[in-house]
Protein backbone atom coordinates (compact mmCIF):
# COMPACT_ATOMS: atom_id res chain seq x y z
CA UNK A 1 0.00 0.00 0.00
CA UNK A 2 2.74 2.42 0.98
CA UNK A 3 4.69 1.49 -2.17
CA UNK A 4 1.70 2.51 -4.25
CA UNK A 5 1.62 5.87 -2.50
CA UNK A 6 5.32 6.43 -3.11
CA UNK A 7 4.93 5.45 -6.75
CA UNK A 8 2.04 7.86 -7.16
CA UNK A 9 4.10 10.70 -5.67
CA UNK A 10 7.05 9.79 -7.85
CA UNK A 11 4.84 9.73 -10.96
CA UNK A 12 3.28 13.08 -10.10
CA UNK A 13 6.72 14.67 -9.69
CA UNK A 14 8.05 13.14 -12.90
CA UNK A 15 5.00 14.32 -14.80
CA UNK A 16 5.21 17.78 -13.26
CA UNK A 17 1.82 17.67 -11.56
CA UNK A 18 2.57 20.12 -8.78
CA UNK A 19 -0.85 20.38 -7.13
CA UNK A 20 -1.29 16.63 -7.20
CA UNK A 21 2.20 16.15 -5.77
CA UNK A 22 1.38 18.39 -2.82
CA UNK A 23 -1.86 16.56 -2.16
CA UNK A 24 -0.24 13.13 -2.43
CA UNK A 25 2.61 14.05 -0.09
CA UNK A 26 0.14 15.44 2.44
CA UNK A 27 -1.96 12.29 2.18
CA UNK A 28 1.12 10.15 2.73
CA UNK A 29 2.03 12.16 5.82
CA UNK A 30 -1.54 11.92 7.08
CA UNK A 31 -1.24 8.16 6.64
CA UNK A 32 1.77 8.32 8.98
CA UNK A 33 4.25 7.17 6.37
CA UNK A 34 7.83 8.07 7.36
CA UNK A 35 8.80 11.48 5.92
CA UNK A 36 12.24 10.21 4.94
CA UNK A 37 10.74 7.38 2.91
CA UNK A 38 8.29 9.78 1.26
CA UNK A 39 11.29 11.91 0.34
CA UNK A 40 13.46 9.13 -1.00
CA UNK A 41 10.94 6.76 -2.58
CA UNK A 42 8.51 9.42 -3.74
CA UNK A 43 9.74 12.95 -4.31
CA UNK A 44 13.42 12.23 -5.01
CA UNK A 45 12.59 9.15 -7.04
CA UNK A 46 10.30 11.30 -9.20
CA UNK A 47 12.83 14.02 -9.88
CA UNK A 48 15.54 11.42 -10.50
CA UNK A 49 13.35 9.77 -13.12
CA UNK A 50 12.75 13.17 -14.72
CA UNK A 51 16.53 13.61 -14.82
CA UNK A 52 16.94 10.22 -16.45
CA UNK A 53 14.32 11.06 -19.08
CA UNK A 54 16.12 14.37 -19.69
CA UNK A 55 19.37 12.52 -20.16
CA UNK A 56 17.71 10.06 -22.54
CA UNK A 57 16.33 12.91 -24.69
CA UNK A 58 12.78 11.97 -23.82
CA UNK A 59 12.29 15.00 -21.60
CA UNK A 60 13.18 18.53 -22.61
CA UNK A 61 13.63 21.62 -20.52
CA UNK A 62 9.91 22.51 -20.30
CA UNK A 63 9.22 19.03 -18.91
CA UNK A 64 12.06 19.32 -16.42
CA UNK A 65 10.77 22.71 -15.30
CA UNK A 66 7.38 21.24 -14.49
CA UNK A 67 9.01 18.32 -12.65
CA UNK A 68 11.19 20.73 -10.68
CA UNK A 69 8.10 22.76 -9.76
CA UNK A 70 6.32 19.63 -8.56
CA UNK A 71 9.45 18.61 -6.66
CA UNK A 72 9.51 22.01 -4.99
CA UNK A 73 5.85 21.76 -3.95
CA UNK A 74 6.43 18.27 -2.58
CA UNK A 75 9.44 19.50 -0.61
CA UNK A 76 7.51 22.44 0.80
CA UNK A 77 4.93 20.07 2.26
CA UNK A 78 7.57 17.64 3.43
CA UNK A 79 10.15 20.03 4.79
CA UNK A 80 8.63 20.80 8.23
CA UNK A 81 8.25 17.07 8.88
CA UNK A 82 11.77 16.30 7.73
CA UNK A 83 13.16 18.90 10.10
CA UNK A 84 11.57 16.98 12.96
CA UNK A 85 13.10 13.75 11.77
CA UNK A 86 16.66 12.49 11.97
CA UNK A 87 17.46 12.30 8.28
CA UNK A 88 20.85 10.66 8.59
CA UNK A 89 24.19 12.08 7.52
CA UNK A 90 24.06 14.85 4.91
CA UNK A 91 26.39 14.86 1.92
CA UNK A 92 27.65 18.18 3.22
CA UNK A 93 26.80 21.80 3.00
CA UNK A 94 26.63 23.44 -0.41
CA UNK A 95 26.52 27.23 -0.75
CA UNK A 96 25.24 28.45 -4.09
CA UNK A 97 24.58 31.84 -5.68
CA UNK A 98 24.53 33.79 -8.93
CA UNK A 99 27.32 36.38 -9.03
CA UNK A 100 26.87 40.13 -8.76
CA UNK A 101 25.24 41.89 -11.69
CA UNK A 102 23.57 38.71 -12.87
CA UNK A 103 19.92 38.03 -12.22
CA UNK A 104 19.35 34.77 -14.07
CA UNK A 105 18.32 32.02 -11.72
CA UNK A 106 16.73 29.28 -13.75
CA UNK A 107 19.82 27.09 -13.86
CA UNK A 108 20.57 27.70 -10.22
CA UNK A 109 17.04 26.72 -9.19
CA UNK A 110 17.39 23.42 -10.99
CA UNK A 111 20.79 22.80 -9.44
CA UNK A 112 19.39 23.57 -5.98
CA UNK A 113 16.54 21.11 -6.54
CA UNK A 114 18.85 18.34 -7.68
CA UNK A 115 21.49 18.95 -4.99
CA UNK A 116 18.80 18.83 -2.32
CA UNK A 117 17.50 15.60 -3.76
CA UNK A 118 21.03 14.18 -3.69
CA UNK A 119 21.29 14.85 0.03
CA UNK A 120 23.21 18.12 0.18
CA UNK A 121 22.25 20.77 2.69
CA UNK A 122 21.93 23.71 0.31
CA UNK A 123 22.32 27.32 1.36
CA UNK A 124 20.95 29.42 -1.49
CA UNK A 125 22.35 32.96 -1.49
CA UNK A 126 20.12 33.91 -4.41
CA UNK A 127 21.00 36.10 -7.37
CA UNK A 128 23.13 39.23 -7.79
CA UNK A 129 25.34 38.11 -4.91
CA UNK A 130 28.32 40.39 -4.14
CA UNK A 131 31.74 38.84 -3.60
CA UNK A 132 31.77 39.78 0.08
CA UNK A 133 28.56 37.88 0.66
CA UNK A 134 30.04 34.70 -0.81
CA UNK A 135 33.12 35.08 1.36
CA UNK A 136 31.10 35.77 4.50
CA UNK A 137 28.85 32.80 3.78
CA UNK A 138 31.86 30.52 3.44
CA UNK A 139 33.17 31.77 6.78
CA UNK A 140 29.80 31.39 8.48
CA UNK A 141 28.58 28.11 7.06
CA UNK A 142 31.92 26.39 6.39
CA UNK A 143 30.49 24.48 3.41
CA UNK A 144 32.05 21.56 1.62
CA UNK A 145 31.34 23.18 -1.74
CA UNK A 146 30.56 26.65 -2.95
CA UNK A 147 28.84 26.98 -6.35
CA UNK A 148 29.09 30.14 -8.45
CA UNK A 149 26.69 30.74 -11.31
CA UNK A 150 26.70 33.34 -14.09
CA UNK A 151 24.69 33.78 -17.25
CA UNK A 152 26.56 36.58 -18.96
CA UNK A 153 30.05 36.64 -20.40
CA UNK A 154 30.73 39.86 -18.54
CA UNK A 155 29.56 38.79 -15.09
CA UNK A 156 31.23 35.38 -15.25
CA UNK A 157 34.58 37.12 -15.01
CA UNK A 158 33.82 37.95 -11.36
CA UNK A 159 34.13 34.27 -10.50
CA UNK A 160 37.89 34.52 -10.77
CA UNK A 161 37.91 37.40 -8.26
CA UNK A 162 35.75 35.46 -5.82
CA UNK A 163 38.02 32.41 -5.96
CA UNK A 164 41.04 34.66 -5.52
CA UNK A 165 39.44 36.35 -2.52
CA UNK A 166 38.72 32.98 -0.92
CA UNK A 167 42.44 32.24 -1.29
CA UNK A 168 43.45 35.64 0.07
CA UNK A 169 41.36 35.06 3.15
CA UNK A 170 42.77 31.57 3.70
CA UNK A 171 39.47 29.84 2.95
CA UNK A 172 40.18 28.21 -0.38
CA UNK A 173 41.89 25.06 0.90
CA UNK A 174 38.88 24.11 2.95
CA UNK A 175 36.21 24.46 0.31
CA UNK A 176 35.70 23.09 -3.17
CA UNK A 177 34.54 25.58 -5.77
CA UNK A 178 32.21 24.76 -8.64
CA UNK A 179 31.25 27.10 -11.48
CA UNK A 180 28.38 26.90 -13.93
CA UNK A 181 26.06 28.79 -16.22
CA UNK A 182 25.52 29.08 -19.94
CA UNK A 183 28.69 30.98 -20.92
CA UNK A 184 31.04 28.91 -18.77
CA UNK A 185 33.06 25.95 -19.94
CA UNK A 186 35.60 23.42 -18.68
CA UNK A 187 38.36 25.62 -20.03
CA UNK A 188 36.97 28.62 -18.18
CA UNK A 189 36.64 26.56 -15.02
CA UNK A 190 40.30 25.54 -15.28
CA UNK A 191 41.34 29.09 -16.01
CA UNK A 192 39.67 30.57 -12.93
CA UNK A 193 40.92 27.77 -10.70
CA UNK A 194 37.62 26.07 -9.90
CA UNK A 195 37.49 22.44 -8.84
CA UNK A 196 34.65 21.48 -11.14
CA UNK A 197 32.38 22.80 -13.88
CA UNK A 198 28.70 21.91 -14.06
CA UNK A 199 27.65 21.71 -17.70
CA UNK A 200 23.99 21.53 -16.70
CA UNK A 201 22.01 20.90 -13.52
CA UNK A 202 22.34 17.13 -13.62
CA UNK A 203 26.03 17.32 -14.39
CA UNK A 204 26.48 19.79 -11.52
CA UNK A 205 24.85 17.36 -9.11
CA UNK A 206 27.00 14.48 -10.32
CA UNK A 207 30.21 16.54 -10.11
CA UNK A 208 29.25 17.67 -6.60
CA UNK A 209 28.80 14.04 -5.57
CA UNK A 210 32.20 13.23 -7.06
CA UNK A 211 33.81 16.07 -5.13
CA UNK A 212 32.50 14.72 -1.84
CA UNK A 213 33.49 11.20 -2.77
CA UNK A 214 29.98 9.94 -3.15
Amino acid at each position, binding site marked *: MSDEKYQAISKAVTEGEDIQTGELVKAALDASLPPLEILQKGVVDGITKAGELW*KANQYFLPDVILSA*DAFKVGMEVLDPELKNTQTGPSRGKYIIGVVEGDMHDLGKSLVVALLTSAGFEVVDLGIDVPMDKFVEAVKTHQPTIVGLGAYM*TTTMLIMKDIIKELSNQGLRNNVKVMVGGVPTSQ*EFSDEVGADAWGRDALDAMQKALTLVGG
Partner: protein
Amino acid sequence: MANPNLEMLHGMLYGKGIRFGRLSGLARIIAAMTGDHADVVPFQGPQIHDHAMTVAKVPARKYYWDADLLVDVHLAVCRWYGFDSATIVADAYNLEVEALGAKMIYSDYAMPTVDVSDPLIKSPSDLDKIGSLDPSKGRIPYGIKIGQLFLQKSPGPFAGGFFCSPWSLICQAMGYPKAVRALKRDKAFAQALFDWAENQAIWPYMQALRKAEVKNANGADAWAAFPELTPELVEEWIVPSADRLRERGKKELGMTVSAGTAAADYCEEDIAKFDKEVMFKCWTAAAKTFPLKVAFSGMGRTQEWNMHWLQEYAVKAGTGGKKLPVMASLNGRFMRDSEPEQIIAKIAEWIDILGRDGRMLVFIGNVPADTPSLNVHTAVNAVRTLGKYPIAKDLSKIKVDSPQFKPFDEWLKDQPEADIIFKSRQSKAN
Protein backbone atom coordinates in the same frame (compact mmCIF):
# COMPACT_ATOMS: atom_id res chain seq x y z
CA MET B 1 30.84 50.64 -55.06
CA ALA B 2 28.96 51.92 -52.02
CA ASN B 3 25.42 51.44 -53.26
CA PRO B 4 23.91 48.41 -51.51
CA ASN B 5 21.51 47.72 -54.38
CA LEU B 6 24.38 47.57 -56.85
CA GLU B 7 26.42 45.49 -54.45
CA MET B 8 23.54 43.02 -54.14
CA LEU B 9 23.13 42.88 -57.90
CA HIS B 10 26.85 42.29 -58.25
CA GLY B 11 26.61 39.45 -55.73
CA MET B 12 23.64 37.86 -57.49
CA LEU B 13 25.38 37.95 -60.86
CA TYR B 14 28.60 36.61 -59.39
CA GLY B 15 26.75 33.78 -57.70
CA LYS B 16 25.10 32.87 -61.01
CA GLY B 17 28.46 32.63 -62.75
CA ILE B 18 28.77 36.12 -64.26
CA ARG B 19 31.98 36.92 -62.43
CA PHE B 20 33.64 40.29 -62.69
CA GLY B 21 35.15 42.85 -60.36
CA ARG B 22 35.98 42.65 -56.68
CA LEU B 23 33.14 41.65 -54.41
CA SER B 24 32.21 43.81 -51.44
CA GLY B 25 31.28 42.08 -48.19
CA LEU B 26 27.59 42.45 -48.92
CA ALA B 27 28.00 41.21 -52.49
CA ARG B 28 29.97 38.21 -51.21
CA ILE B 29 27.17 37.27 -48.80
CA ILE B 30 24.50 37.67 -51.49
CA ALA B 31 26.53 35.55 -53.92
CA ALA B 32 26.75 32.75 -51.35
CA MET B 33 23.09 33.07 -50.36
CA THR B 34 21.55 33.23 -53.81
CA GLY B 35 24.00 31.65 -56.21
CA ASP B 36 26.58 28.90 -56.34
CA HIS B 37 29.37 30.56 -54.43
CA ALA B 38 31.30 33.80 -53.97
CA ASP B 39 35.04 34.35 -54.43
CA VAL B 40 35.57 33.14 -50.90
CA VAL B 41 33.35 31.86 -48.09
CA PRO B 42 31.80 34.95 -46.47
CA PHE B 43 32.19 35.74 -42.79
CA GLN B 44 29.06 37.45 -41.46
CA GLY B 45 29.32 39.93 -38.65
CA PRO B 46 28.14 38.27 -35.43
CA GLN B 47 26.20 39.54 -32.43
CA ILE B 48 29.08 41.18 -30.68
CA HIS B 49 27.90 43.98 -28.38
CA ASP B 50 29.53 42.76 -25.15
CA HIS B 51 32.79 41.90 -26.89
CA ALA B 52 32.88 45.11 -28.92
CA MET B 53 32.40 47.12 -25.73
CA THR B 54 35.34 45.27 -24.18
CA VAL B 55 37.59 45.71 -27.21
CA ALA B 56 36.77 49.42 -27.42
CA LYS B 57 37.14 49.81 -23.64
CA VAL B 58 34.05 52.00 -23.36
CA PRO B 59 31.97 52.25 -20.17
CA ALA B 60 28.82 50.11 -20.05
CA ARG B 61 26.78 52.91 -18.52
CA LYS B 62 27.41 55.04 -21.58
CA TYR B 63 27.52 52.36 -24.25
CA TYR B 64 24.07 50.97 -23.41
CA TRP B 65 22.47 54.43 -23.47
CA ASP B 66 24.26 56.26 -26.25
CA ALA B 67 23.17 55.00 -29.69
CA ASP B 68 25.90 56.91 -31.54
CA LEU B 69 28.56 55.28 -29.40
CA LEU B 70 27.11 51.77 -29.65
CA VAL B 71 26.78 51.96 -33.42
CA ASP B 72 30.24 53.43 -33.94
CA VAL B 73 31.86 50.87 -31.66
CA HIS B 74 30.16 48.06 -33.60
CA LEU B 75 31.16 49.48 -36.96
CA ALA B 76 34.76 50.03 -35.89
CA VAL B 77 35.20 46.64 -34.25
CA CYS B 78 33.53 44.77 -37.12
CA ARG B 79 35.76 46.56 -39.62
CA TRP B 80 38.86 45.91 -37.51
CA TYR B 81 38.07 42.21 -37.64
CA GLY B 82 37.26 42.33 -41.35
CA PHE B 83 33.80 40.79 -41.27
CA ASP B 84 31.77 40.94 -44.47
CA SER B 85 28.84 42.59 -42.68
CA ALA B 86 28.02 44.21 -39.38
CA THR B 87 25.35 43.11 -36.97
CA ILE B 88 24.42 46.00 -34.74
CA VAL B 89 22.31 45.17 -31.77
CA ALA B 90 22.29 46.24 -28.12
CA ASP B 91 20.78 44.28 -25.22
CA ALA B 92 17.83 43.34 -27.41
CA TYR B 93 15.92 41.44 -24.74
CA ASN B 94 15.56 44.30 -22.28
CA LEU B 95 14.22 47.42 -23.95
CA GLU B 96 10.49 46.70 -24.01
CA VAL B 97 10.16 45.29 -20.49
CA GLU B 98 12.35 48.05 -19.13
CA ALA B 99 10.11 50.69 -20.74
CA LEU B 100 7.05 48.92 -19.35
CA GLY B 101 8.40 49.22 -15.83
CA ALA B 102 10.38 46.06 -15.13
CA LYS B 103 13.00 46.40 -12.43
CA MET B 104 16.47 46.41 -13.90
CA ILE B 105 19.99 45.99 -12.62
CA TYR B 106 22.53 48.37 -14.11
CA SER B 107 26.23 47.79 -13.94
CA ASP B 108 29.48 49.60 -14.69
CA TYR B 109 30.85 46.73 -16.74
CA ALA B 110 27.93 44.69 -18.10
CA MET B 111 24.75 45.18 -20.06
CA PRO B 112 21.56 45.96 -18.14
CA THR B 113 19.66 42.93 -16.97
CA VAL B 114 16.12 42.31 -15.72
CA ASP B 115 15.68 41.72 -12.01
CA VAL B 116 13.83 38.41 -12.22
CA SER B 117 13.37 38.30 -8.46
CA ASP B 118 10.64 40.93 -8.88
CA PRO B 119 9.05 40.22 -12.26
CA LEU B 120 6.76 42.52 -14.18
CA ILE B 121 4.07 39.85 -14.44
CA LYS B 122 3.44 37.93 -11.26
CA SER B 123 -0.14 36.86 -11.97
CA PRO B 124 -2.60 36.98 -14.90
CA SER B 125 -4.24 40.13 -13.50
CA ASP B 126 -0.98 42.04 -13.95
CA LEU B 127 -1.48 41.90 -17.73
CA ASP B 128 -4.32 44.43 -17.44
CA LYS B 129 -2.36 46.73 -15.16
CA ILE B 130 0.79 47.10 -17.24
CA GLY B 131 -0.79 48.94 -20.14
CA SER B 132 0.74 49.62 -23.53
CA LEU B 133 4.33 50.49 -24.19
CA ASP B 134 5.03 54.20 -24.50
CA PRO B 135 7.84 54.46 -27.06
CA SER B 136 9.15 57.62 -25.46
CA LYS B 137 9.93 55.74 -22.24
CA GLY B 138 13.08 54.00 -21.05
CA ARG B 139 15.64 53.18 -23.71
CA ILE B 140 13.14 52.69 -26.54
CA PRO B 141 14.32 55.96 -28.15
CA TYR B 142 17.85 54.54 -27.93
CA GLY B 143 16.72 51.40 -29.76
CA ILE B 144 15.02 53.48 -32.43
CA LYS B 145 18.10 55.61 -32.94
CA ILE B 146 20.32 52.54 -33.26
CA GLY B 147 18.07 51.35 -36.09
CA GLN B 148 18.26 54.73 -37.80
CA LEU B 149 22.04 54.98 -37.47
CA PHE B 150 22.54 51.40 -38.63
CA LEU B 151 20.56 52.17 -41.82
CA GLN B 152 22.36 55.45 -42.30
CA LYS B 153 25.91 54.26 -41.68
CA SER B 154 25.82 50.71 -42.99
CA PRO B 155 22.85 50.46 -45.35
CA GLY B 156 21.79 47.19 -46.88
CA PRO B 157 19.42 44.29 -46.35
CA PHE B 158 20.81 43.43 -42.90
CA ALA B 159 20.48 46.95 -41.49
CA GLY B 160 17.50 47.90 -39.37
CA GLY B 161 16.03 47.89 -35.92
CA PHE B 162 15.77 45.17 -33.33
CA PHE B 163 13.26 44.09 -30.75
CA CYS B 164 12.59 41.32 -28.32
CA SER B 165 10.33 38.65 -29.81
CA PRO B 166 7.07 37.84 -28.01
CA TRP B 167 8.11 34.62 -26.33
CA SER B 168 11.43 35.97 -25.02
CA LEU B 169 9.63 39.14 -23.94
CA ILE B 170 7.17 37.03 -21.95
CA CYS B 171 10.11 35.21 -20.33
CA GLN B 172 11.72 38.53 -19.49
CA ALA B 173 8.46 39.79 -17.98
CA MET B 174 7.61 36.79 -15.80
CA GLY B 175 10.54 34.37 -15.81
CA TYR B 176 10.99 31.35 -18.05
CA PRO B 177 9.67 28.69 -15.62
CA LYS B 178 6.30 30.40 -15.17
CA ALA B 179 6.07 31.23 -18.85
CA VAL B 180 6.77 27.66 -19.92
CA ARG B 181 4.27 26.41 -17.35
CA ALA B 182 1.64 28.56 -19.05
CA LEU B 183 2.48 27.04 -22.46
CA LYS B 184 2.21 23.53 -21.12
CA ARG B 185 -0.61 23.85 -18.61
CA ASP B 186 -2.69 26.97 -19.25
CA LYS B 187 -3.07 27.67 -22.94
CA ALA B 188 -5.64 30.44 -22.47
CA PHE B 189 -3.24 32.38 -20.27
CA ALA B 190 -0.38 31.65 -22.67
CA GLN B 191 -2.43 33.07 -25.55
CA ALA B 192 -3.25 36.15 -23.46
CA LEU B 193 0.47 36.58 -22.84
CA PHE B 194 1.27 36.41 -26.56
CA ASP B 195 -1.55 38.85 -27.33
CA TRP B 196 -0.15 41.26 -24.76
CA ALA B 197 3.44 40.89 -25.99
CA GLU B 198 2.56 41.31 -29.65
CA ASN B 199 -0.04 44.07 -29.40
CA GLN B 200 0.77 46.09 -26.31
CA ALA B 201 4.51 45.74 -25.97
CA ILE B 202 6.01 45.18 -29.41
CA TRP B 203 3.53 46.82 -31.74
CA PRO B 204 3.88 50.40 -30.37
CA TYR B 205 7.66 49.96 -30.72
CA MET B 206 7.23 48.85 -34.35
CA GLN B 207 5.03 51.87 -35.03
CA ALA B 208 7.67 54.16 -33.56
CA LEU B 209 10.41 52.50 -35.59
CA ARG B 210 8.39 52.91 -38.76
CA LYS B 211 7.72 56.54 -37.94
CA ALA B 212 11.49 56.97 -37.69
CA GLU B 213 11.81 55.46 -41.21
CA VAL B 214 13.19 52.16 -39.94
CA LYS B 215 11.32 49.71 -42.18
CA ASN B 216 12.96 46.50 -41.11
CA ALA B 217 13.19 45.03 -37.61
CA ASN B 218 14.54 41.75 -36.38
CA GLY B 219 13.25 40.12 -33.21
CA ALA B 220 15.64 38.05 -31.15
CA ASP B 221 14.16 34.99 -29.48
CA ALA B 222 16.87 33.04 -27.69
CA TRP B 223 14.40 31.84 -25.05
CA ALA B 224 12.79 29.86 -27.88
CA ALA B 225 16.02 28.03 -28.71
CA PHE B 226 16.22 24.29 -28.10
CA PRO B 227 16.07 22.85 -25.42
CA GLU B 228 14.32 25.82 -23.78
CA LEU B 229 11.51 25.05 -26.21
CA THR B 230 11.06 21.92 -28.28
CA PRO B 231 10.57 22.26 -32.04
CA GLU B 232 6.96 21.19 -31.48
CA LEU B 233 6.36 24.08 -29.09
CA VAL B 234 8.09 26.43 -31.53
CA GLU B 235 5.74 25.26 -34.28
CA GLU B 236 2.72 25.60 -31.98
CA TRP B 237 3.47 29.03 -30.48
CA ILE B 238 6.44 30.85 -31.97
CA VAL B 239 5.81 30.37 -35.68
CA PRO B 240 2.15 31.54 -35.57
CA SER B 241 3.13 34.53 -33.44
CA ALA B 242 5.91 35.47 -35.86
CA ASP B 243 3.47 35.07 -38.76
CA ARG B 244 0.97 37.38 -37.08
CA LEU B 245 3.55 40.09 -36.52
CA ARG B 246 4.97 39.73 -40.03
CA GLU B 247 1.52 40.02 -41.62
CA ARG B 248 0.48 42.95 -39.48
CA GLY B 249 3.77 44.75 -40.09
CA LYS B 250 3.43 44.28 -43.82
CA LYS B 251 -0.25 45.22 -43.97
CA GLU B 252 -0.42 48.15 -41.56
CA LEU B 253 3.07 49.62 -41.67
CA GLY B 254 4.62 48.40 -44.90
CA MET B 255 7.40 47.10 -42.71
CA THR B 256 9.33 43.84 -42.41
CA VAL B 257 8.89 42.57 -38.87
CA SER B 258 10.83 39.34 -38.32
CA ALA B 259 10.10 37.79 -34.95
CA GLY B 260 11.41 34.48 -33.68
CA THR B 261 15.04 34.77 -34.72
CA ALA B 262 17.00 31.96 -33.04
CA ALA B 263 13.82 30.02 -32.24
CA ALA B 264 14.57 26.30 -32.39
CA ASP B 265 18.29 27.01 -32.58
CA TYR B 266 19.76 23.64 -31.53
CA CYS B 267 21.61 24.49 -28.33
CA GLU B 268 21.88 21.09 -26.69
CA GLU B 269 25.02 21.16 -24.55
CA ASP B 270 25.45 17.47 -23.87
CA ILE B 271 27.27 15.81 -26.75
CA ALA B 272 25.91 12.42 -25.71
CA LYS B 273 22.41 13.75 -26.33
CA PHE B 274 22.99 15.07 -29.86
CA ASP B 275 20.13 13.66 -31.88
CA LYS B 276 19.96 13.87 -35.66
CA GLU B 277 16.17 13.60 -35.78
CA VAL B 278 15.67 16.39 -33.24
CA MET B 279 18.27 18.53 -35.03
CA PHE B 280 16.41 18.14 -38.33
CA LYS B 281 13.14 19.10 -36.64
CA CYS B 282 14.82 22.13 -35.11
CA TRP B 283 16.29 23.30 -38.42
CA THR B 284 12.91 22.93 -40.09
CA ALA B 285 11.16 24.91 -37.35
CA ALA B 286 13.94 27.53 -37.30
CA ALA B 287 13.63 28.10 -41.05
CA LYS B 288 10.00 29.13 -40.56
CA THR B 289 10.89 32.18 -38.51
CA PHE B 290 14.43 33.03 -39.58
CA PRO B 291 14.38 36.00 -41.95
CA LEU B 292 16.61 34.22 -44.45
CA LYS B 293 16.04 30.79 -45.93
CA VAL B 294 19.05 29.01 -44.55
CA ALA B 295 20.11 25.89 -42.72
CA PHE B 296 20.89 27.65 -39.50
CA SER B 297 23.32 26.96 -36.71
CA GLY B 298 23.50 29.67 -34.10
CA MET B 299 24.61 29.52 -30.51
CA GLY B 300 24.83 25.77 -29.99
CA ARG B 301 27.84 23.62 -29.23
CA THR B 302 28.56 23.49 -32.92
CA GLN B 303 32.23 22.61 -32.54
CA GLU B 304 31.07 19.13 -31.55
CA TRP B 305 28.40 18.75 -34.22
CA ASN B 306 28.64 16.26 -37.02
CA MET B 307 28.50 18.79 -39.83
CA HIS B 308 27.69 16.05 -42.33
CA TRP B 309 24.20 16.16 -40.77
CA LEU B 310 23.84 19.87 -41.44
CA GLN B 311 25.05 19.37 -45.01
CA GLU B 312 22.61 16.47 -45.48
CA TYR B 313 19.77 18.63 -44.18
CA ALA B 314 20.71 21.57 -46.40
CA VAL B 315 20.77 19.35 -49.49
CA LYS B 316 17.44 17.69 -48.62
CA ALA B 317 15.73 20.98 -47.81
CA GLY B 318 17.05 22.79 -50.86
CA THR B 319 15.07 23.47 -53.98
CA GLY B 320 15.84 23.46 -57.70
CA GLY B 321 18.79 21.15 -57.22
CA LYS B 322 20.53 23.59 -54.91
CA LYS B 323 21.11 23.11 -51.22
CA LEU B 324 19.91 25.68 -48.73
CA PRO B 325 22.62 28.15 -47.84
CA VAL B 326 24.33 26.97 -44.67
CA MET B 327 25.02 29.35 -41.83
CA ALA B 328 27.91 27.66 -40.03
CA SER B 329 28.24 29.35 -36.69
CA LEU B 330 31.33 29.01 -34.53
CA ASN B 331 30.34 28.61 -30.88
CA GLY B 332 31.18 31.68 -28.79
CA ARG B 333 32.82 29.74 -25.97
CA PHE B 334 34.82 27.70 -28.48
CA MET B 335 36.07 30.97 -29.92
CA ARG B 336 36.98 32.24 -26.49
CA ASP B 337 38.58 29.10 -25.09
CA SER B 338 40.42 27.65 -28.09
CA GLU B 339 43.96 28.03 -29.31
CA PRO B 340 44.25 29.59 -32.78
CA GLU B 341 45.32 26.21 -34.21
CA GLN B 342 42.10 24.61 -33.00
CA ILE B 343 40.05 27.35 -34.65
CA ILE B 344 41.89 26.92 -37.93
CA ALA B 345 41.42 23.14 -37.81
CA LYS B 346 37.70 23.50 -37.12
CA ILE B 347 37.24 25.92 -40.01
CA ALA B 348 39.17 23.61 -42.34
CA GLU B 349 36.94 20.70 -41.30
CA TRP B 350 33.78 22.70 -41.88
CA ILE B 351 34.80 24.11 -45.24
CA ASP B 352 35.74 20.61 -46.35
CA ILE B 353 32.27 19.34 -45.46
CA LEU B 354 30.02 22.34 -46.08
CA GLY B 355 31.84 24.63 -48.44
CA ARG B 356 32.93 22.60 -51.44
CA ASP B 357 29.58 22.92 -53.18
CA GLY B 358 29.23 26.57 -52.19
CA ARG B 359 26.36 28.21 -50.33
CA MET B 360 28.26 28.36 -47.07
CA LEU B 361 28.59 31.32 -44.72
CA VAL B 362 30.55 31.49 -41.49
CA PHE B 363 29.36 33.30 -38.41
CA ILE B 364 30.04 33.38 -34.65
CA GLY B 365 27.18 32.73 -32.25
CA ASN B 366 27.47 35.76 -29.96
CA VAL B 367 31.10 36.64 -29.20
CA PRO B 368 31.83 36.51 -25.44
CA ALA B 369 33.20 39.68 -23.88
CA ASP B 370 36.62 38.25 -23.06
CA THR B 371 37.29 36.40 -26.31
CA PRO B 372 40.91 37.02 -27.32
CA SER B 373 40.93 39.27 -30.35
CA LEU B 374 43.64 37.07 -31.83
CA ASN B 375 41.11 34.25 -32.02
CA VAL B 376 38.57 36.30 -33.95
CA HIS B 377 41.23 37.61 -36.35
CA THR B 378 42.47 34.04 -36.75
CA ALA B 379 38.99 32.81 -37.65
CA VAL B 380 38.46 35.53 -40.26
CA ASN B 381 41.92 34.96 -41.72
CA ALA B 382 41.41 31.19 -41.82
CA VAL B 383 38.10 31.54 -43.66
CA ARG B 384 39.68 33.94 -46.14
CA THR B 385 42.58 31.56 -46.75
CA LEU B 386 40.88 28.17 -46.72
CA GLY B 387 37.57 29.29 -48.16
CA LYS B 388 38.88 30.53 -51.52
CA TYR B 389 36.98 29.08 -54.49
CA PRO B 390 37.63 26.62 -55.90
CA ILE B 391 38.29 25.03 -52.53
CA ALA B 392 41.65 23.24 -52.45
CA LYS B 393 41.47 19.47 -52.75
CA ASP B 394 43.52 18.93 -49.63
CA LEU B 395 42.97 21.72 -47.12
CA SER B 396 45.57 20.27 -44.77
CA LYS B 397 48.21 21.36 -47.25
CA ILE B 398 47.12 25.00 -47.17
CA LYS B 399 49.13 27.06 -44.74
CA VAL B 400 47.17 29.61 -42.76
CA ASP B 401 49.50 32.38 -41.65
CA SER B 402 49.09 34.18 -38.34
CA PRO B 403 46.76 37.11 -38.83
CA GLN B 404 48.45 40.48 -39.16
CA PHE B 405 46.66 43.26 -37.35
CA LYS B 406 47.43 46.43 -35.46
CA PRO B 407 46.28 46.70 -31.83
CA PHE B 408 42.76 48.14 -31.81
CA ASP B 409 43.69 51.53 -30.31
CA GLU B 410 46.51 52.06 -32.79
CA TRP B 411 44.28 51.10 -35.70
CA LEU B 412 41.43 53.23 -34.40
CA LYS B 413 43.44 56.47 -34.48
CA ASP B 414 42.92 56.75 -38.24
CA GLN B 415 39.28 55.74 -38.25
CA PRO B 416 36.15 57.94 -38.31
CA GLU B 417 34.97 56.46 -35.01
CA ALA B 418 38.15 57.42 -33.12
CA ASP B 419 36.83 60.61 -31.58
CA ILE B 420 33.62 59.24 -30.09
CA ILE B 421 35.28 56.10 -28.73
CA PHE B 422 38.32 57.78 -27.17
CA LYS B 423 36.17 60.54 -25.65
CA SER B 424 33.66 58.09 -24.21
CA ARG B 425 36.42 56.43 -22.18
CA GLN B 426 36.69 59.59 -20.12
CA SER B 427 32.99 59.44 -19.29
CA LYS B 428 31.71 57.12 -16.57
CA ALA B 429 27.99 57.79 -16.59
CA ASN B 430 25.26 58.49 -19.06
